[in-house]
């Protein structure tokens, strides 16, 4: 029993049948080779090792160089 003020999970819990019926667009697809995967990006280059620069810092450096007239290389 939840106490007053607690956050309650309010979603419906779907049955297996309901979940399967709702999977429109997920019918079997036949393909050869491995499906394409790509990194989720959230954790790229983490933790930073020596010599690595974060994307934020690198992008900042690129913009700063650009603003002072230095082109991309």
């Amino acid at each position, binding site marked *: 029993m939840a106490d007053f003020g607690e956050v309650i999970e309010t979603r419906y819990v779907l049955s297996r049948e309901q979940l399967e019926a709702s999977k429109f667009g997920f019918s079997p697809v036949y393909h050869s080779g491995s499906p394409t995967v790509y990194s989720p990006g959230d954790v790229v280059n983490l933790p930073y090792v020596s010599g690595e620069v974060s994307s934020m810092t690198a992008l900042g450096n690129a913009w700063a160089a650009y603003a002072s007239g*230095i082109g991309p290389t």
Partner: protein
Amino acid sequence: MGSKSGSSFGSFGAQDAPLINKIKPVTTEFSRGSVPNSIARMDRESAWTRWRRGYEIACYVGIQHGLTYPFEYKVPFPVDIAPAEGNQPLILGVVQGFPTAGKEFGVHWAGCRIGAILRFDNVTDSSGTLASIASVVEDDEYWYVQLAGSWSSANPLPPPLYVPNPSGAPLKPLLGETLEDRIITPGSSPVTKDTLNPATDKRYGYVQAVLIDVDGENGILKLQKSGSFQASPDNVYLTPSAGAFTPGRYFTVGTRYACSCQDFSRRSYAFMMNLSEKETRRFPYTRPSLLKYGRHELITDANSGTIDNRAMTDANQNRDLTLTTSSIDNPGVFTDFGGRYLRNIPADGKAEGPTTFVDYTAKDNQITSFSDYWTPLLDEMRYCKHIYALRFEEGILPPEPSDLPVGTTESLTAWEQNLVRETATSKKHSQYITTLRALALMDVPPKNFQSPQMLPMMQKLLNVPTSFIRLENFRMQDKTGAFYNPSAYELPAT
């Protein structure tokens, strides 16, 4: 009550009282000619239509992933020495092609820059203090976030938040980005809407809002409440957000989308060929009534400066985007694609008005930012159906826009069923015919990233100056998950 009709005075006497059941709705507007009435126009402009259509496209196109191109963009190092391959700072994204019969080259390309790619947990002031969210002040329209650290005119926020510009006003490249307070501790993975706080066994939740302005000298970010959203602790998205950012956390940027279609780019174009009918070349023209004061874009050879608008080029042939402004539209090439006018929340409460075409900032003729369509609507920038399809594919069920089409002659259910049927038919056609034809006409990413339709779109997607979009900075991922370098003539695994 009624006038005497047929008298020598004609019928300009008092009019009959109108019978309610005989009144016909107004179906056209003064001087609009054959243009549909305002209800049809509103329906066409409805975000709901794009949202619904995007779901159909995601179902029919998305599951095959025939034209999906994940890429890594290596941030260029103009001054420093770049780290070794594999340790370079990256921006990750994916470009998805949507075969379209109505598009000259047969494919619209929609891009997604993956979220949380720029993290604030390594932004520091001059003494090394991390720029976490120190405090939040709010008024009716904005949150003002003070970042931790000591900031002054001598030590302003670092680039890319605030870039001093020797030749003018400082650049603020991140304006228009969505920021999310998803990093709890430095170096950790950003929380998602599902992440539980182990200490309390409740979800962290987070808030997303659009960055409107940066006060670099005081370390203050101004974020807009309108269009914000909140991943609430009970795992639902609320928009606008019911709360402010959590002090102590760090910002990341949100997922960013861009598309080359006319709807997103707000520009139409001439068709030099006609894919769906017979293959006759056409001479581009623009009706005089559509000629507007505006800009047009030219793709030029990076070395010689000559115009090079080809759709297929060598992977080592870099090109620049040249803007021509203060002139009329280039007849037949680009015309204004119409407008979307939002009402401003602020106190003056006036509508935003039509597109001004001074909708970008440029430096040395390189676009540094676009702003025309960046007005966020609910939690999003103005998305086209392709971007909605990308979001459905990612499993991010985008919130259903509330502007349902109205005034349809049939029921909305019949209208939807028709939409499903139409999508199925057109996708069958464009999958098998348009795709083959398109691939013969134009190149695929990254080799088309500098084509006239793609370069402005890539600028919007990556949010870097157009001159930084260089083919040698892209690595593409093949079906085995390995990355290859097209500018070094490497190929995907067979």
